[in-house]
């Protein structure tokens, strides 16, 4: 068993302080976030970008441990930026920041490679816990998002993306999530460790990214043919 999500685990502590990058267009908000993150013990805000373009220029060189990304950015959106950053920094977790949890936008962000999302009004302590969870390989998923993931995998696939499909276990995990079960409860029901459930979820995220990438390629190719 991994330690509780709210406490920093041993393996994370080894890399302390966590180097956090921030992409947020509002100057005041960006400054507040920067100061708040810096105030967390073991956290350091190493970079605060105002636009997606700036982030794409700076972050590959900075190589932060985790990126906090506003969904709505002027010009290039946070979702597009996430997708591009993932191509350069595939291992770096990206957490979306959103003012309201509109599932459609959040789902799009997750599809394009984000590893989780946080409401901007989340309490600092919870936020810190969530960041640590993502760092330790957590892939949080709500029942609403799980429902959309199932639907997207059931929808008719385009291009070669049908080669990416969910295993029976993964689908079962998602279905249980839609019914409101927690990771712990799912682990109990499936008689596996909670770590296994987390691995399932991580794989689901990964498949979703692959799928959305192949779909994007397929769309691009079909666009070229026309």
């Amino acid at each position, binding site marked *: 068993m991994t330690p509780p999500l709210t406490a920093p685990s041993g393996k994370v502590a080894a890399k302390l302080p966590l180097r956090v990058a921030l992409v947020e267009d*509002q100057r*005041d*908000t960006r400054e*507040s*976030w920067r*100061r*708040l993150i810096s*105030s967390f013990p073991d956290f350091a805000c190493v970079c605060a970008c105002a636009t997606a373009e700036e982030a794409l220029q700076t972050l590959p060189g900075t190589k932060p441990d985790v990126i906090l990304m506003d969904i709505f950015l002027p010009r290039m959106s946070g979702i597009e930026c996430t997708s591009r950053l993932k191509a350069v920094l595939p291992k770096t977790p990206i957490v979306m920041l959103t*003012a*309201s*949890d509109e*599932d459609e936008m959040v789902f799009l962000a997750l599809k394009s490679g984000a590893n989780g999302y946080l409401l*901007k*009004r989340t*309490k*600092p302590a919870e936020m810190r816990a969530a960041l640590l969870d993502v760092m330790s390989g957590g892939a949080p998923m*709500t*029942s*609403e998002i799980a*429902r959309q993931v199932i639907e997207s995998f059931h929808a008719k696939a385009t291009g070669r993306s049908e080669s990416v499909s969910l295993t029976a276990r993964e689908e079962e995990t998602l279905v249980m999530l*839609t*019914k*409101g*079960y*927690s990771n712990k*409860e799912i682990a109990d029901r499936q008689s596996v460790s909670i770590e296994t459930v987390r691995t399932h979820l991580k794989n689901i995220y990964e498949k979703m990214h692959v799928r959305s990438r192949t779909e994007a390629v397929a769309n691009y190719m079909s666009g070229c043919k026309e």
Partner: protein
Amino acid sequence: MKWPAVYFTIGLLGRSCSLPALAQSEPSGTVTNQPASQDLAGKLDPTWGVGSWIWAAETYDKQTVHLWRSFEIPQGTTVAKANLRITVDNAYKLFLDGRQLGMGSDWRSLTEYDISQILDAGRHVLAVDAFNDNREAGLLFGLIIELSDGRVITISSDSNWRIVPNEERGWELKQEALKNWVSATVVSEFLPRPNSKIKAREFDRKPTMIVKVPVLRPVVVRFWQNGWFQISLLGVAVGAVLTCLHLLARLVLQAKAQALLNRERARIARDIHDEVGARLTELALEGEVMQTELSADSDLRPKLDALCEKARAVSGAMDEVVWAVNSQRDTLRDFATYACKYARRFVAATPIRCRLDVADNLPDAVFELPVRRSLLLAVKEAINNAVKYSAADRLFLRIHVQGRVVLVVVEDNGKGFDLEQADPLRNGLSNMKQRMRELGGRCRILTEPGAGCRVEFEVPWSKTSRPPAATSARAGGSAGSGNGSAGDSPALSEAKEAAN
């Protein structure tokens, strides 16, 4: 009404023909007192029952001549028999009282019309629209009317007919001749005697046969053939079309207004979110930052913390307002998503575990603001009650569609209560019921001590549910009729099952 095409029954006229005929010497258009029997056979032998050939004073090719005369059938008598024979060199249309009886274009045959059934006492008007193709022209006409009292009226083609100027309109209906209607000219006696010499103007024409047309029946004017009726009908039809157009126009306007309203709602939602919700979030964030900069034992810390907490709470509440106002959330699916999210969050802070049971095939139906908002408030009330009083460890939120009804169930496996003893006001039970009634739906509470509690909300939905009042009235009725006999036991047992 048009008379049907002429059906001729053709019979060659022989000398033995026993038709009642007009004695040539008699003045035409007079009433004779001879008994009908005296007009029979023998006397008619040489006659064809017609008068002389008459025409306008001048004759020329391609000539149209309007011939007119009127006659009277004495009041108090009825017509026993009336036969009319006519032919024109070259063609004619025959009118009686304005009604066209028939037409013909072959002078070699006389046409006989039996008009017994369409003549009655009073004044009548005969009119012949005649046409001459070339050379000689003439109308040959004879009408014998036998009255029920034995008298006979005869009308022949003679100089009593009038020639109507061609430009006269409605002449075939005129009861009296006008001054400029000159008398017809007898152009030739009918059938000049074989021994008499044919004068220059006379011509030796005689028809060789008589063609009988079927008996003419009175024109029955049905009420729908009545002019006033048709005008009124037309009026009604035009009125209906105008009303339809008017309603259609209003509908289009209403749809436009609705679209405008929806756009406006989306804008308001966005504005509230951006201007209020987001600012509150920033406020909370700034508060948090200020806290970090205070010393750990500062008095201000808890105060600031409370302030941030409040800002976050208001920001959360604002999200719900945004959700309710936003027209893009006017669907059943959005409602389900939001209700589940709410239930999960609300229960997260309690030891109760929340189970969601949402139908996969929820239709993408319009779920209007007043409906989803009231339903959400009712569901919140139910969840709140369950968390507060039930002492349950499981809470179920089920959302399904049954026909035209959305069924939302909030169910717990807690201690339940005695519905009779419960204070409806305190538990918000009457509140929930009232909300559902306003939507045209209903609320059922199934519980008993120790058996958990199941609150069912039923709300009508429809794909075209733009005016909620109309749909709720309809579906409300069907819901009411459907549940009376159902009883509570199945639902209750299900609740118990779920509780286990």
